[in-house]
């Protein structure tokens, strides 16, 4: 009897927690990387996301933030907590593709919405796409492919290309080659997390390449650029924004100047939403936002716009509202393809020395208009 009474109390308690927030309130769970290597990405996504929610002035939205420390197993258990204990309506925040693959499929299958502010692995755009999954950032190949197309257009004929030997690295080079459509002088693969590039730089020097394209995310890019500048090899350098965000190029210093990179956004992109965003972000946090911040900001504003027409509990209506993507994006035009991945312009930026004596990115122009991923035909939604 005692047992049953205790069980009953427990059930009441559980029910009490579940209904603790009012029916019309919205709860958003954010799992992102706030500690360890590469945490500046997660910090920027979080800061911009919270800024957008604050600017909306809505009191009925609660954002719960958790740090995954870049560990897939931890991200998974945090997701379960969000789903089962906190009963969140929407999840977002994951930075890395391997973490996204560990978390997203089970989240969306259990009927919760997931909006990606960064990671865009090909599987989630293609055969594993889901009606509750939206990518507000990019599909992983986009920026590399756009750089391939732009370099071909600029008349480069013989680039040497470099990436770490792991899925996102090989995807990056495949994406680049797909739109470059020509022969490359060579492909170099490094180890993931490699810190010394003397061997690769010597090979680049010994090749007959006319340019260098590389994908080395985070600290790898810093190490490479510093050693590259010290090597005296003088080839034009190209990459995706992942190695040239505002935080990284400040750590590289003068060595980054002159490198050109593709990005879906630039802080000097000329539209009213972006002006307001960059200004308010600088005011709130005292630094220039990175593209990750822009993606976090857009993700929040997409959610806010969709909430205007429906509550996530009304799944079909809310999903339809997300699909519409009727919000002012900091990147200008923004719409979703049939697989809920963006169709968007990709820009080229050049690293220049800023007025404050620190390097910064300057917008050069559009690399490819309305780029779309190549996996959407595999998506059966």
């Amino acid at each position, binding site marked *: 009897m005692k047992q049953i009474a205790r069980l009953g109390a427990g059930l009441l308690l559980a029910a009490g927690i579940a209904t603790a927030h009012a029916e019309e309130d919205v709860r958003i769970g954010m799992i992102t990387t*706030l500690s360890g290597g590469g945490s500046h990405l997660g910090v920027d996504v979080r800061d911009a996301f919270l800024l957008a929610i604050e600017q909306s002035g809505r009191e009925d939205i609660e954002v719960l933030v958790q740090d995954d420390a870049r560990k897939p197993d931890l991200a998974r258990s945090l997701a379960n907590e969000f789903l089962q204990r906190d009963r969140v309506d929407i999840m977002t925040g994951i930075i890395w593709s391997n973490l996204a693959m560990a978390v997203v499929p089970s989240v969306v299958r259990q009927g919760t919405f997931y909006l990606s502010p960064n990671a865009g692995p090909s599987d989630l755009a293609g055969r594993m796409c889901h009606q509750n999954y939206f990518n507000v950032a990019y599909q992983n190949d986009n920026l590399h492919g756009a750089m391939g197309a732009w370099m071909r257009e600029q008349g480069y004929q013989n680039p040497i290309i470099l990436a770490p030997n792991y899925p996102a690295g090989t995807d990056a080079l495949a994406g680049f080659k797909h739109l470059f459509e020509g022969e490359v002088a060579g492909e170099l693969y490094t180890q993931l997390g490699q810190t010394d590039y003397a*061997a690769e730089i010597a090979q680049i020097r*010994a090749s007959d390449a006319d340019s260098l394209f590389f994908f080395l995310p985070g600290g*790898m890019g810093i190490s490479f650029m510093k050693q590259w500048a*010290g090597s005296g090899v003088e080839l034009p350098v190209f990459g995706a924004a992942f190695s040239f965000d505002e935080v990284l190029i400040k750590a590289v210093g003068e060595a980054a100047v002159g490198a050109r990179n593709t990005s879906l956004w630039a802080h000097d992109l000329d539209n009213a939403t972006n002006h307001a965003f960059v200004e308010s972000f600088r005011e709130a946090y005292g630094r220039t936002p990175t593209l990750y911040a822009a993606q976090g900001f857009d993700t929040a504003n997409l959610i806010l716009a969709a909430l205007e027409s429906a509550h996530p509990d009304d799944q079909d209506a809310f999903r339809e509202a997300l699909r519409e993507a009727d919000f002012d994006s900091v990147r200008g035009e923004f719409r979703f393809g049939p697989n809920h991945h963006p169709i968007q312009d990709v820009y080229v930026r050049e690293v220049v020395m800023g007025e404050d004596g620190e390097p910064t990115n300057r917008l050069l122009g559009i690399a490819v208009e309305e780029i779309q991923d190549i996996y959407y035909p595999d998506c059966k939604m």
Partner: protein
Amino acid sequence: MSATLLLEQLINGLQLGTMLFLMASGLTLVFGVMGLINLAHGAFYMVGAYLTAAVTAASGSFLLGLAAGLSGAAAVGAVVELVVIRRLYHRPHLDQVLATFALILIFSEGTRWLFGSSPLWLNTPEWLAGHVPLPGGARYPLYRLVIIGVGIAVAVGLWWLITRTRLGMRVRAGESDREMIGALGIDISRLYTAVFALGAGLAGLAGALVGALQSVQVGMGEPVLILAFVVIVIGGIGSIKGALLGAVLVGVVDTLGRVFLPLAFRAVLPPAEATDVGAALASMLIYILMAVILAFKPRGLFAAHD
């Protein structure tokens, strides 16, 4: 493939080797003298790099920064020995691994708390930014040659310290019989603190030197730590000579493997596959080397305790 490329890569391998030696010598000394497995050795590498970056940025002098990195890491090492490590000497290795792993986490989060999560800026100073011409027309960065020079100087210094000084005599005595030198009236705990601080200082020096070439960021020490463990296992745990030879061996094999394995496979496979297979095999090469050496010399090349 030309002779110049080969020469350049050999120097690259030597440079990686000397940097690994700075890390491995401290690790092997601490293990040899105190029997302690110190996973937190990479933290001192990071401390050295961060202090150098911070002091260089504040003072504008790289040499001052380097001195701060070296002495700061040694000081932090001494404090860690006094507060934590001292309690671990008589514990089993598993306890040591757990405690020093906790130190890694504490140092990483502490550094992030103090300096933020963005990587710090640290560049090679102007006067070391030049190049040295190599025979065959290539140019080699002066700074990397300086790292090799520092590594050789440290190796000679350590050799002199261990074989020619009283401290070195005690270190050697401590390696062969810990209880006996205590019984002979040597203050063993002071010796331990000194050796630990020396190892930490050398790791800090490595971090400071390499910080100018790579990115100064939280967690930068752990990848190097793994290589340093490979080095001391190959060289024989506890042996400085083994650490030097092991470091150069690992540095050269790793560098040459990364460059020439993909090229070699290109002779028998289509280019894309050759790159894949070659790169994959190159990343395993030093572990294969370790396995082969251990198969023939289970205690490493120069085992300290026979």
